[in-house]
């Protein structure tokens, strides 16, 4: 059952608590049509069961922000045909009544469903519904008690209203960080293999094949690493969020393994050249091994910091 009250916009007008009652017969229900498209319809009535004509009903796609509007007929009904399946935010506006917003209604294109949901009831600004009026509400929790509402708790509409844009930002962030996480895990494979292959490539070893294998694995590791880093760097920031907890360590480690992942191949190329010339690796190139070890260690620590609880 759906329960709604339209609040009267004009102070001092008594008894104008409005109820949007979208019942099984008149509730916004979803009708299967073509694949991926649905119909949303319903009826707007007031607290006394009177139909509200010329009310504007606006459906806004939560994901894409696309808006469709409809006006209620003389019987209070409205209808949206061919709505793409998805979540919609609904706004009801009528002259003399307080705007009502339903944060989300799901339209499924492939099934006929009746939205059976209790929605938050408000009350008129200057004319609180009497018990008798409350009794007329569908799903009223009690026949004689006026149930408290969110506004009774001091929560403003801004606090209770959904924010589709913020949700979309969070969705994108999570999507990118999931890829970051998977790529990080995948990168660990060639990274470990590169470290193992280094044992046959450095030192007194003269094997060209070992050096080539080490170089190839290092190259793959570097490529995967930078793809991993891209998804972390490009993931959208959520304004007003202070970084707390293990993620701080994870990010701090990036300041070690990030430069390390740039330095290691440069030093590696220098070491490779010297080794290819038959020289002993010397000078700054000799830092290739230690830098690589520190880089791999920082990368592993970063991964563990968000995987295990210390």
């Amino acid at each position, binding site marked *: 059952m759906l329960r709604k009250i339209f609040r009267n916009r004009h102070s001092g007008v008594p008894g104008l608590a409005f109820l949007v009652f979208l019942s099984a017969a008149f509730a916004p229900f979803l009708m299967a049509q073509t694949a991926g498209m649905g119909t949303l319809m319903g009826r707007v009535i007031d607290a006394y069961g009177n139909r509200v004509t010329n009310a504007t009903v606006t459906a806004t796609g*939560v994901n894409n922000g696309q808006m469709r509007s409809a006006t209620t007929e003389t019987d209070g009904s409205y209808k949206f045909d061919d709505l793409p399946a998805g*979540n919609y935010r609904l706004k009801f506006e009528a002259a003399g009544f307080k705007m009502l917003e339903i*944060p*989300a209604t*799901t339209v499924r294109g492939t099934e006929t469903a009746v939205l059976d*949901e*209790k929605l*938050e009831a408000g009350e008129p600004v200057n004319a609180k519904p009497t*018990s008798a009026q409350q009794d007329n509400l569908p799903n009223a*929790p*009690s026949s*004689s*008690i*006026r*149930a*408290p*509402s*969110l506004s*009774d*708790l*001091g*929560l403003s509409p801004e*606090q*209770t*209203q*959904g*924010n*589709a844009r*913020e*949700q979309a*930002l*969070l*969705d994108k*962030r*999570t999507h990118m*960080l999931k890829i970051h*996480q*998977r790529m990080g*895990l995948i990168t660990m494979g060639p990274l470990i293999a590169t470290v193992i292959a280094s044992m046959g490539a450095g030192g007194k070893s003269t094997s060209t094949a070992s050096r080539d294998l080490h170089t190839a694995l290092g190259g793959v590791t570097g490529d995967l690493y930078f793809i991993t880093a891209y998804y972390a760097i490009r993931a959208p920031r*959520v304004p007003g*969020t*202070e*970084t*707390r*907890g*293990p*993620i701080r360590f*994870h990010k701090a480690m990036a300041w070690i393994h990030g430069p390390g992942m740039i330095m290691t191949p440069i030093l590696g190329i220098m070491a490779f050249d010297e080794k290819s010339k038959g020289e002993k690796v010397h000078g700054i190139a000799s830092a290739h091994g230690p830098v690589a070890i520190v880089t791999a260690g920082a990368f592993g620590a970063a991964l563990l910091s*968000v*995987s*295990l*609880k210390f």
Partner: protein
Amino acid sequence: MNKRILIVFLFAALPTFAGADSQWVLKQSTLTYHVSHPLHQTEGVSHAARGKGVCHTGQCEFLIAVPVKSFDSGDSNRDLHTLQVTRGAEFPIVTVRTRLPESTAASATFNADLEIQFAGQTAQYKQVPFKLETQGGETHITGTIPSTLADFKIDPPSLLTMPVKNEIPVRVDMTWQPQ
């Protein structure tokens, strides 16, 4: 004579008092969700719940609301992910409604039928047991709501390809005060 009039008046007025509305206000609260993962045991805590109870003729309607954003697990990244997976930006408030007889305040334990709206879904929990303790005019209520991710159609988030358990029990610790 005056005494008799006073007594008659008081008796006559009793039904009026008995039917009068009374209210309860949530003074303090700690709500803690628990998430289990093969590698992690995580808890998120909120102290930001607001609540009110309205009583009339022996029956009380309670509403408790808590912002999804207010839960703190000690890790901002995890909290943001929790907010995303529970669609906390679209549905920023968790509400709990219940109806109890006013006489419950005199019990040491009680069972409540809860209706919880969260993540755009509504779930009903029948006969959830709570403990109740009254001290100095304040009523302290503790209990655990046996909620699950599936109740609210939330896909279990995963870490290192391992999903968290479906069960997310929520410990409730509230102090109510008559208004």
